[in-house]
């Protein structure tokens, strides 16, 4: 890549920091330049996000249908998996799995609810009723 070819497209990161990029100058010597973004990779990011959004919507539907508890929705919303949730909660993975059952969820202690809300960066109210 030549220095004058360093892409200067609009990027997500570019809004807060232009990235250091290595390229060669006219004499073939390596120099650094800054890049505000590159459409090709911004689009790659978009594809990843679209796929997350789809998963989140599916999770939302399943919670609304009463198949799953809000724990499932928030896990997807925060791009976590059961293992990550269990580690942040300091409980076993199978407990997280149980808490995803609406019947078990109803009986969760206030302390657990509060901890979940903290892990998912939301209020207790919003954690319990995410679609209000």
């Amino acid at each position: 890549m030549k220095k004058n070819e360093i892409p200067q497209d609009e990027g997500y990161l570019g809004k807060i920091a232009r990235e250091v990029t290595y390229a060669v100058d006219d004499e073939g010597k390596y120099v650094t330049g800054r890049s505000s973004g590159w459409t090709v990779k911004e689009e790659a990011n978009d594809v990843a996000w679209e796929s997350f959004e789809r998963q989140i919507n599916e999770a939302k539907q399943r919670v609304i249908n009463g198949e799953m508890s809000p724990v499932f929705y928030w896990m997807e919303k925060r791009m976590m998996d059961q293992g990550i949730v269990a580690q942040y909660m300091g409980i076993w993975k199978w407990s997280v799995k149980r808490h995803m059952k609406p019947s078990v969820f109803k009986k969760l202690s206030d302390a657990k609810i509060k901890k979940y809300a903290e892990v998912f960066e939301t209020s207790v109210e919003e954690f319990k009723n995410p679609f209000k």
Partner: protein
Amino acid sequence: MTSDFKHIQAAHCENGVTTSLLAHYGIHKITEPLAFGIGSGLFYIQLPFMKVNGGPAISFRTLPGAIFKRTCVALDVPVTRKKYSNPQKAMAELDERLAAGKPTACQVGVYYLTYFPKEYRFHFNAHNIIVVDKQGDDYIISDPVMEGLVTLNSYELERVRFAKGAFAPRGQMYYPGENLTEATDVQLRTGIIKGIKRNCRDMLHIPGPIGGTDGIAYTGRQIKKWKAKLGDEKARMYLAQLVRMQEEIGTGGGGFRFIYGAFLQQAHQYLPVDELFDLSKKFTESGDKWRDAAIQASGIYKGRLSSHADYNKMGDMLIEISALEKNTFNQLKAMIKKVN
């Protein structure tokens, strides 16, 4: 303290942390490309059976921590690395070092990194930052990705130091010794030779088909099957993930190939073999081909291209890169053998 610390923006976080910390404690000859090359940072692997964010687990670089460690070892710099099970202790020991005016590196997760844009906040736990100072409840942070210093409060810093998931940092902090003597040209020469040899070994001789230059062809062959095996939607997501690993924050473009090209040019000052310039050009060529492949991939994941032939072309581009890099690394290996 903040006033004597010089923030250095780098392409890759670990290179940047290594370069800035060594400079702060007395070694100024190390640049980002030198740290990357001495640390044998270039790599390629696709781990089968493992998924990251629902896509293929691909890496273009060596293991987290290796670049810092190898560079320090090459320069006879002592390294301390600590992990914690107790967050209070982890924060207290960091505070102690900061109170003594000693900037310290931490491995952190990016998910709760508040100064990152939302689009970059994935559960990725091998990010590196330097904590420079503490003012009240705020920590002054030198994050090599950022153009200037940023801050995190104590709650936020503790949270990212104890991020959970794969490669959980467990509060890890690390730092080199103090009052270091400037690296000698002989140390650099020896470090460069060793770094190149180790990188040739990793890229050419790692056993099995999934890593090194062979691994690139492995991914190329897989890509040709993705459309039929995964369906369009998932195949697109997989390709996007490959491009993200290759071009996202930290690689300096072209999956680190351009940084490696810069390393070979800078190495010439300590290892005056003119062939290095020719080899550097070959890495530039490789990096350019990786970027061409990314453009082809983007055609597919944005839906402009979708036929089997388009996937085949994408796969072939990687197979060609694999052959090119195998050739380049063999030339590099032959060159470095002669200098001893």
